[in-house]
Every structure is written in C-alpha cells, then in structure tokens.
C-alpha cells in the first residue's frame, strides 16, 4: 500500500530513511551535539544530502531526566520545524512527541508525521493528526508512562502484545479520522522491553509486517544492541546494522536512524537480496 505522509506519497517498494535530529541537550547518542538550532539545521542539511526522506525532530530525550513541560518542548521544536519546512519543501518532517498540544503546534508549522514513541499516552494525539491530515506512528510500550524505564516487565508473548497494542492504536487513529494510508506501526525496541524482548521482536518482525500496516523500526544504537554485544553507545553501529538487516529482510518500511548512509546501504543490500530492488549496476558475467 502506498504510504502517505501528509503531502508526500511513497510506493511500497521503497524503504525510507528517517534521520534523527535532536533538539535536546542530553540525548544518549549525540549528547547535545545539535542542541544549538544552527547545529540542528546543519544536521538536517547533512542527512538530506545523504538521502534521508524523513527527519524526526525531537525536543525531549526518551530517558528519564529533567522534566520538560509542553511550553519548553514547543520552544525547542516548533520554530525549528517551520525553518526546516521552508528550507526543504520536499522533506518529510516528523516530530517525536507524545503530547497533543505539541503535535498541534508542529503540524501548524509544517510537520507531516507525528512519531509518538510512547504508545498513545496522550489520547488526543490521534485527533490532532486527523485534524491536520498528518500521519502517525503507533508504537508499543507495554503501557508505561512516558520517559520511564522498563522494570521487570514480562509478556506471555511479547510479539502478540506488540501487534495487539499497535493495531489497537492504529484502529483508534483511523476511528479518529487519520487516513489509513498514513498510519505506521512500530514495535518500539527497548520501550517497555528488556533486551530479550527486543531481540524476539526483531526475530519475529515478519509477523508485524504480515498485518499489512507499514512497519517502522527504531533500532539505532539502542541498549538492546549494546547489551547483546557488550558495547558502549559509541560502538553499536555494526550491531545496529545487523539488526537492521534482519528487519529489512522481514520487510520493515521505515528506519529511524542516526547513521543514514550506512543504514541506506544495509537496507538496499538486503532489499536487493530479497528481490525487491535491482542491483545498482550489474555487468560482471553478463557482458
């Protein structure tokens, strides 16, 4: 099914790169590298050059920390979204927020997609997406409160829980008036999940893809990669790309990433192995 992210439509044969752009002083991977607005803008320019179709702008880190209210979150992202919208009309702008109030403001500023990493914690977010004809990412968190860590959470069947919750959320979005072709589902690795859960979700991602909803995966440099390989944050690219390969083979459509060109190459390679994309330029043995 064609995926529509507000004004932007993408055929289902095409995997998409969503580049993370943090307007935060304390996110785990870049540690505030793009906290200054001009640095964040340069990051956008750079990922566009690398071929990212989507930027995911976030004003609050996922991990617990200093409380950031809606006013401060808006101050961090709304004007920035407007600036990016004006400079890059063809770019899909996603905003990583769980708050309806923030979602409304960024959609007015030109955002196309609301990436709710916290599984619908604010029930009005779907109404905002519907009102603006924006797209929405429906994640699974196991019902945890935003910005909390998982603690002794267990599931009878984590993939069953992921599918039930994300599809329930997707249905809520459609019932609220969000266009069905503008709804994505995301298992949300590490959110409400220990490493074993995230590994199982990766291994069984094909079950999510089989639901027919386009699947977004956010694997980039996460703790389940770090714990699996015993690597600190700066040394998780190889593990991230290995997990990316597994998700690509299963057919994930959107990849939320720090490293765009590395992920693009990985996904293109797997997509081609899967027979969904031709090689870039094959002549060896065929002359």
């Amino acid at each position, binding site marked *: 099914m064609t995926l529509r992210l507000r004004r932007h439509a993408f055929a289902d044969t095409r995997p998409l790169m969503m580049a993370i752009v943090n307007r935060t002083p304390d996110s785990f991977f870049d540690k505030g590298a793009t906290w200054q607005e001009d640095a964040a803008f340069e990051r956008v320019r750079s990922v566009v050059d690398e071929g990212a179709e989507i930027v995911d702008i976030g004003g609050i880190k996922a991990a617990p920390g200093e409380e950031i209210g809606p006013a401060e979150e808006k101050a961090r992202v709304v004007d920035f979204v407007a600036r990016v919208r004006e400079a890059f009309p063809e770019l899909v702008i996603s905003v990583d927020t769980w708050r309806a109030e923030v979602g409304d403001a960024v959609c007015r500023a030109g955002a196309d997609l609301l990436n709710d990493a916290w599984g619908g914690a604010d029930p009005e977010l779907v109404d905002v997406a519907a009102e603006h004809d924006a797209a929405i990412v429906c994640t699974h968190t196991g019902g945890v409160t935003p910005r909390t860590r998982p603690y002794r959470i267990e599931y009878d069947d984590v993939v069953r829980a992921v599918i039930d919750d994300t599809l329930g959320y997707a249905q809520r979005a459609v019932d609220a008036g969000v266009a069905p072709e503008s709804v994505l589902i995301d298992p949300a690795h590490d959110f409400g999940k220990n490493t074993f859960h995230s590994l199982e979700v990766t291994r069984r991602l094909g079950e999510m893809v089989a639901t027919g909803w386009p699947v977004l995966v956010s694997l980039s440099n996460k703790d389940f990669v770090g714990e699996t390989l015993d690597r600190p944050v700066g040394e998780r690219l190889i593990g991230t790309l290995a997990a990316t390969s597994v998700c690509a083979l299963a057919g994930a459509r959107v990849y939320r990433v720090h490293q765009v060109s590395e992920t693009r190459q990985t996904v293109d390679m797997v997509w081609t192995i899967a027979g969904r994309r031709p090689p870039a330029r094959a002549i060896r043995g065929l*002359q």
Partner: protein
Amino acid sequence: MTRIALVPGCLALLPEYASVIDPVSELREAVRTAADWLGTDATVVGGPQARRLGASVLAGGARATTGERSYLVVGNGSACRTEKAPGYLDPRAEGFDKLLGAALAGTDAAALASLDQSLARELWADTAGLSELSGLLDGARLVGIDYDGAPYGVQYWVMRWER
C-alpha cells in the same frame, strides 16, 4: 526484401538482469532500434542462449512484420579485449575483432565464412550465429552500423542489412 540485423549476446540486455542504472544503455538503444526495424516475427539465429536473448529483444518490439522475411542474428566479437574482460587480455583479440568488424561492415560473406573458428573459440567470441549470417549476407547491402564498441572488454556490434 529480406531484413537482417546482428546484435550481441549480452545478457545484461535481459529484463531479469536489469539494474537501477543500466550498464548498457547505449547498446540497448541500438538493439531496440534494430529489433523495431526487423519486426516482432523475425527468425532468431544463434545458439540456445542467444535464441532466448533474441526472443526477449523481439518481444518488446514496436512493429509487426509486414510479410517480408527478417532475421535477428545474435553474436559478437572477442571477450578478451582488456585485463578486466571476461576472458582476460589477449593481444590477438583486437586484430581478430578488426578483421571480423571489417567483414561485417563490408558485407563480405566470403570472409565471414572463412572465419578462424578455433581462434574465435580461444578469444571467447560468440560466432555460432555468424556462419549462418554469412549465408544470409550473400547479395545484401549494409543499411547501418548502430553500435560498434567494447565497453566491457567484449566487442559488440549492432548492424543492419537488407537484400
């Protein structure tokens, strides 16, 4: 009137070997021109793989045959023109291709018939269809050379004749 065209047995022309960026775009265009000129009912001349390629090339044709006979001959020169060529660099390859190219362009049926088949095999040349071509070219005239090059160490020609 009989129409005859020669195209190389380059497998990159087949749709199942398509790339995002076509490595043989100019060749493909020349082959397309020749196939359209022949019509979709042309008889393909060459070995089994060549016949598969020929059938594929003709299947995409834009024009039905108008009743006259036409032949699509599949064959090419050496595959030893450079170190990166499939058969590696053979210093005899260039001279071989020059002679063969001259015979084709000169519609020299006798020269084609007396082609050194053992040298052709050593140079990985695809000449199975060319001996039949020599018979077809008797009394023919060259209509055009649409392609003459060895972009990947293999000598390709796209040529058209009629008689």
